[in-house]
C-alpha cells in the first residue's frame, strides 16, 4: 500500500518533471502533495530560529532528517540544493528507526514519516528537550508532543504548531508562521486521533 503510494508519488514527480510547468502548476493537488510539503519544510527552516548551541559552527548546515520511509524522493534534495538560510547550507539525511536515537540528535529538523507512526511518542519524548524541529506528516503529531505536523484541509496542505513543544525545544517560531498555523495543545495521548 505504502509502496504503491510512493510509486505513485515518484511517477507523479517524474511526470511533473517531464511536463515542466504542468507539474509546478498543481500546487496542492494530491499528486504534488510531497512536493508542497518539501517546500513547506524548507520554508519552515526560514521562519524558525534555533539556539546557537544547536550548531557546531556558524556555517554548519541545517540538517533535515527524514525518519522512516522517504515520501519526498529527490524532491526535497532538489529544493534545498544550493540554498542557504542565514548563511547556512541545508543537508538532507535519511534516518532509519533505531533505539539509540543517535542519528536523530544530529538533526535540526526531523521529519517523521507516516511509516514511523508507532514510534512517534518515543521519538518525541527522546528529543523533546533538544532544539530539533519535529514535523509530523499526519495530524495529531503536534498534539502528541511534536512541534509541527501537516494536515490536509480542503485538499490543501496546512499545518499545526505546538507552541509549548517549541518552547521546550528552545525554538523560536516566527509569528508569521504562527499566523498561518493552527495552534494546538498537547493533549492526553491520542485525544484527537480520529480525524
Amino acid at each position, binding site marked *: 500500500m505504502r509502496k504503491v503510494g510512493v510509486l505513485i508519488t515518484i511517477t507523479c514527480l517524474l511526470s511533473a518533471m517531464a511536463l515542466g510547468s504542468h507539474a509546478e502548476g498543481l500546487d496542492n493537488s494530491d499528486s504534488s502533495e510531497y512536493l508542497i510539503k518539501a517546500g513547506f519544510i524548507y520554508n519552515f527552516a526560514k521562519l524558525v530560529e534555533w539556539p546557537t548551541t544547536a550548531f557546531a559552527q556558524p556555517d554548519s548546515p541545517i540538517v533535515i532528517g527524514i525518519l522512516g520511509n522517504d515520501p519526498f524522493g529527490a524532491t526535497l534534495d532538489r529544493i534545498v540544493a544550493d540554498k542557504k538560510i542565514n548563511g547556512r547550507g541545508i543537508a538532507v539525511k535519511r534516518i532509519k528507526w533505531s533505539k539509540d536515537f543517535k542519528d536523530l540528535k544530529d538533526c535540526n529538523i526531523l521529519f517523521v514519516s507516516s511509516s514511523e507512526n508507532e514510534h512517534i511518542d518515543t521519538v518525541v519524548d527522546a528529543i523533546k528537550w533538544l532544539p530539533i524541529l519535529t514535523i509530523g506528516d499526519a495530524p495529531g503529531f503536534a498534539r502528541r508532543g511534536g512541534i509541527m505536523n501537516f494536515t490536509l484541509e480542503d485538499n490543501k496542505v496546512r499545518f499545526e504548531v505546538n507552541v509549548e513543544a517549541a518552547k521546550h525545544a528552545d525554538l523560536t517560531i516566527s509569528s*508569521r508562521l504562527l499566523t*498561518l498555523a493552527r495552534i494546538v495543545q498537547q493533549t492526553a495521548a491520542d485525544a484527537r486521533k480520529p480525524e
Partner: protein
Amino acid sequence: MNLKNLSIKRKLMLITMLTSGVAVVLSSAGFLIYDLTSFRHSLSQDLMTQAEIIGYNSAAAMAFKDEAAATVTLSALQAKEDIVSAVLYTRDGKIFAQYVHANAPRPGLPAPPQARGYRFAGNYLEVFQDVTLNGEPVGTLFLQSDMRQWTSRAKRYAIIFLGFVLISGFFALLVSSKLQKLISGPILHLEDTMRMVSATKSYEVRATKFYGDEIGRLIDGFNTMLSEIQQRDMALHHANDELKTRTLELEGEIVHRKEMQKELLNAKLAAEDANRAKSAFLANMSHELRTPLNAIIGYSEMLEEETHELGKVENVKDLQKIQGAGKHLLALINDVLDLSKIEAGRMGLHLETFDISQMIEEMVTTLHPAISKNSNTIRVHEAKKLGVMRADITKVRQILFNLLSNASKFTDHGTISVDVDRSTEEGHDWIRFRVADTGIGISAKQKGNLFQEFTQADVSIARKYGGTGLGLAISYRYVRLMKGRISVESEPGQGSVFTVHLPANVTTELPEAAQTGRASDHQAAPMEMKSNMDTILVIDDDSAVRDLMTRFLTRLGFQVVATASGEEGLRLAKQINPLVVTLDVIMPDCDGWAVLNKLKADPELAEIPVIMVTVVDNESMGFELGASHYLIKPVDRDRLAVLIEKHRAARSLAATRLESPSKKRSGGWKGTAAKHNGKTAVPVK
C-alpha cells in the same frame, strides 16, 4: 495697440501689477510644484513602505500558499482610503490574492507583474513590490493608490494659491496706485504746464520740480528751455521794436536824403547855369578885352616906330613899356582862356607832321633874347635821326616855350640845356624833350602842386620873376591831352630838370575833317594871274584894326582896300580881285563865316587866299570853310607879313606849288606871342 496708448498712470500700475503678479505666480507655482512633487514622492515612498509591510506580512502566506491568510492580510488595507486595489502575484505571475477597496471602481489590474518600483499611471500611483521570505522571492505585490491625499492637497493649494494671488494683487493694486503718483504726478504736471504754455504762449510759466530724479531733471531742462525761449522772445520783440525804430529813422533819412538830393540837383543846375554864364562871360570878356588890347598894342607899335623914326628916343622906351604891359596882359588873358577851355574839355588837337629839329631851332632862335637876358647860355643836344613827329605843333611849341622861359627866368649866369631823343616803348615811338637848368631849383614840397594852375613855387616868385603861374599847368594839360607825360627832378639850389615824353605819332578822337579840309585847301595851288598883285582886301568892322592894318601893309608896299561890311567886302573882292583877303569873324551885318563861305562858293573868288584875323578861337571852323590861314588878334604883324609875302611870291611865279604845309601852317597867336616875347623880352617888373 491700446496698451501702448494707455496713460502713464495705467501703464505704471499695469507694470507693477504684472511684475508682482508674475513674481507671485512664479514663486507660488514653484513652491507648489516643489511641494506637490515632493509630496508625491513621499506618497510613493509611503506606498512603497506600505507595500513592503504588506509584502512582508503576506510573504509567509504566499510561501505556504495560504490564499485566505493573504487575502486577510490585504484586507487590512481597508483602513487606507487611498489604496484602491492590491494584488499578490505568485512567482509565475498568477494572481494569488487580491483586494479592491469597497468604494473604488474596479480598475483594470495589470495582468503580469512588472518591474519592482513605483510608477504613476494616470491618476493612480502604482507600486510593485517583490515579496520575499527570508531573502527568497515568493511573489510580487501590486498596490494601486488613487493619491487622494495628493489630489486633495493640490485642490487645497489651488484654492489657497488663488486666494493668495487675489489678495496680493489687491494689495499691489493699492500700493501701486499710491506709488505710481511718484512718477506719473510730475509727468502729468509737466504735460499740463506744456499744454498751458503752448496754448497761452506765455513763457513766464514754470513747471514745479518735485523730486531730484530724471523727471526732476527733465523739468529743470524744460524750465531752462522755457526761460531760453522767453529770453529769445523778448530779444526778438526788442529787436523787432528796434527794427521798427530804425526803419522809421531810415525812412526819415531817406526823405531827408531825397530833399537833399533835390537841393543838390537844384544846386547843380544852378552851378551849371552859373558855369554857362561864366563861360559866356569869359568868351565875351576875352573878346571885349582883346579888342581894346589890339588897339593898344597895335598903336603903341606904330607909335614906337614913328617915334623912333622921329628920333625921340626918350619916348620910345615909354611906348615899349606900354607895349610890353599890353602883351603881358594879352598873354594872361590867353592863358586863362586856354585853361578854361581845357577844363571844359573843349580843347582840340590839330595834328600835323613836322620836323622836330626845325621846330627846336625856331624855338631857340625865338627865345634867345630871353635866355641871354640873365646871362645864361643855351646848349641844345639832339639825337641823330630825330626825324618828324605828328602832333599839335602849336601845343608842343607852347610846352617847350613854357619850360624854356621858366628855365631862363629862374636861372642866372647858368646853363640851360635841351636834350631831344627818340625811343621805342611797347612798339610805339616816343620823343623825349629834356630841359635842364642850373637855377634855383624846386623843393620837394613845391613839386607836389607844381602842375596846378595859378601856382608858382612861392608867392614871392611872382613878384620877383613875374609870370602868370599858368605856364606849367597848361603844359601839363597839353601833355596829357597828347597822351604824353611830364615829370620833374629838382633839388633846391641845384637846378631843375623837366622831362616831357610825347608819342611820336599822337592820335586823337577828333574827326580828321578839319585837317583834310585844310589839306584840300592847301593843295588848291594854282593861282590865277588875273589878281591884283599888290592889293589886299581887309574886311573888319573894327576901325582901329582897319586903320592899323592899312598903315602896316601900306608900309610893306601893298595897296590896301578896307571895308567894315561883309557884303561890301564880297563886292570889292569881285571888283579888285585882291592878292589876299583878311577877314574878321564877328561883324554886325554879315559875319566872317558867311563871307568866307560865299567867297569860296564863288568860282571867281574861290582861288583868292583868305587869312582869318579874329578874336574868335575857332581855327578848325575856318579851315573847314576854306581859309588859308588863321590868325588871332592881336595880330603878329611879322607873321602876317611873311604869309602875305609868300602868297605874293607864289602868285608871281604863276602857278607854282605851295611850300610844305607844316611850314605854311605854323601859325596861331601863341607862337606869335612867343616871338613877341622873344623880341621884346619878357616883361620885367
